[in-house]
């Protein structure tokens, strides 16, 4: 069993109009090389589900997005993602704005094959006012009303991990796997990019096996792209690229996303990495201290 693919072939599994979930959190461990592959493609009308960072900003800026399902889109140290902000302020995208935990419940519902999960989260807020598709229901067990958080069924999930074997056993070595396991389980097709493809015996060490958060049956494709989370972080391999994010943000004020792509995107990942200083430079980016 060999699930290894090249980035372009993996992304070719995505079609116009699909719902694509993206793992990671804000500026952390985003499958940015796969996102860049979408930027290079003709894909359009995507619905994106994400704890958003530059993944959402770039896809919006490139006109690939019809709708964003989000709780936040932020680069953390730059609190407001510049291109997501622009897309919203131009009225260019549809949105489903929900609570961070509601997104988790929606992914869980999709993973478990149930139409919704009841929660009190969202009650009394504009999450309900602006999302008439999210229903409030009676409980068979008490007299309260409950939000029926609908399943967020994903056609495709994109995730970046530290290592994977060819069969799709994926290791997240960093301190947090975020909600990546739920993205993997909520999707029909899960494409994982990784820093390194390893042989299966790598996982014989129980400490490493403990860092595998979903079964290989939930992984459809493995793409080896060292440095593939750049400019987001891949703790403990490298931190996020503050200078690059600042340059990216500056283009939102001057030049636009076309200027960013012209300067950095390149025809493939090798060219991109060359333009941002090379893999060694990415690997040398210090981890942030909070």
């Amino acid at each position: 069993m060999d699930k290894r693919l090249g980035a372009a072939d993996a992304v070719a599994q995505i079609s116009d109009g699909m719902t694509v979930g993206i793992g990671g959190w804000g500026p952390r461990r985003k499958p940015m090389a796969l996102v860049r592959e979408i930027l290079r493609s003709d894909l359009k009308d995507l619905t994106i589900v994400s704890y958003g960072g530059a993944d959402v900003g770039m896809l919006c800026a490139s006109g690939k997005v019809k709708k964003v399902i989000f709780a936040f889109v932020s680069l953390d140290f730059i609190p407001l993602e510049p291109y997501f902000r622009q897309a919203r302020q131009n009225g260019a995208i549809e949105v489903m704005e929900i609570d961070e935990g509601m997104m988790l419940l929606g992914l869980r519902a999709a993973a478990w094959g149930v139409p919704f999960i009841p929660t009190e989260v969202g009650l009394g807020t504009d999450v309900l006012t602006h999302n008439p598709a999210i229903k409030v229901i009676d409980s068979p067990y008490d007299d309260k009303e409950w939000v029926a958080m609908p399943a967020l069924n994903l056609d495709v999930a994109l995730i970046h991990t530290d290592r994977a074997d060819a069969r799709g056993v994926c290791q997240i070595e960093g301190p947090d796997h975020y909600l990546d396991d739920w993205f993997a389980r909520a999707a029909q097709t899960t494409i994982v990019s990784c820093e390194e493809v390893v042989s299966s015996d790598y996982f014989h060490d129980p400490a490493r096996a403990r860092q595998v958060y979903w079964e290989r049956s939930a992984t459809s494709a493995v793409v080896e792209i060292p440095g593939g989370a750049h400019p987001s972080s891949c703790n403990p391999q490298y931190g996020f690229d503050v200078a690059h994010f600042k340059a990216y943000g500056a283009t939102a004020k001057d030049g636009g996303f076309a200027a960013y792509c012209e300067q950095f995107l390149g025809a493939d990942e090798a060219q991109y990495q060359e333009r941002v200083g090379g893999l060694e430079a990415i690997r040398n980016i210090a981890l942030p201290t909070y």
Partner: protein
Amino acid sequence: MTAATEYTLAELCIVASAEAFRDDGEKLATGIGVIPRLAASLAMKTFNPALMMTDSEAFMLSEPNPIGARDEGFVQANESWMGFSRIFDNVWSGKRHAMLGPTQIDRFGQTNTSALGGSYQQPKVMMLGARGFPGNSISHRNSFFVPSHNTRVFMDGECDYVSSIGYNPARLPRGHSLDDVDIHRVITDLCVMDFGGPDHQLRILSLHPGVSAEQVQENTAYELCIPADIPTTPAPSVEQLQIIAGLDPHNQRAYQIKDNPPGNRSPEVV
């Protein structure tokens, strides 16, 4: 405990905000931003050692981390893993007290972190999004820190976008009571408040030294509950200032309130 005679407004706000965590017992204290984080850390290191805290990433700590770059040999006091997915288990259990800084706080205690002006489809200013505010507000105790008390934050009418549930009868979910909502303290650069006035009206609890109730009302677009005798927010103690300095070795607290003014703004000390 010796009251300090010289302290900054930021330090006064840290100590006043720490008080919000005094009676929490064994809860996860989440302070977002420098002053709320230092407040929660100070509370944990002094009068409420039962508090729990994270490293703002994926571990729970038995001892708060100092803010910013730390010495080479520093080892943080991990006590458990606490990744983002596990945070929701804690949030929904109610054993948490978050202190955050929303952009708008209306007279109902509803807050806005998402968007300002325009229409929902096309807001004039897009901000963070609802984030975890809907879940926080209905699941556990929350407090707010506002570094600049003005009528843009404490605004007229209802929030442009309601991120968190407050004491608004019109939005009360069926089967719930307004008393289920627990907005504990609102600390600003002028005063400490709660929603303990009649019908959950925002009420002044203490005024920072040199600040008048009139000044607070002038900077609030809706009517405040102003009790007859309002105490002055207590000055930090010398011991508290030492602990704060240890928790914030790079003095990030000096950049949190415009011009880093002194804590006592009474005319007699000018």
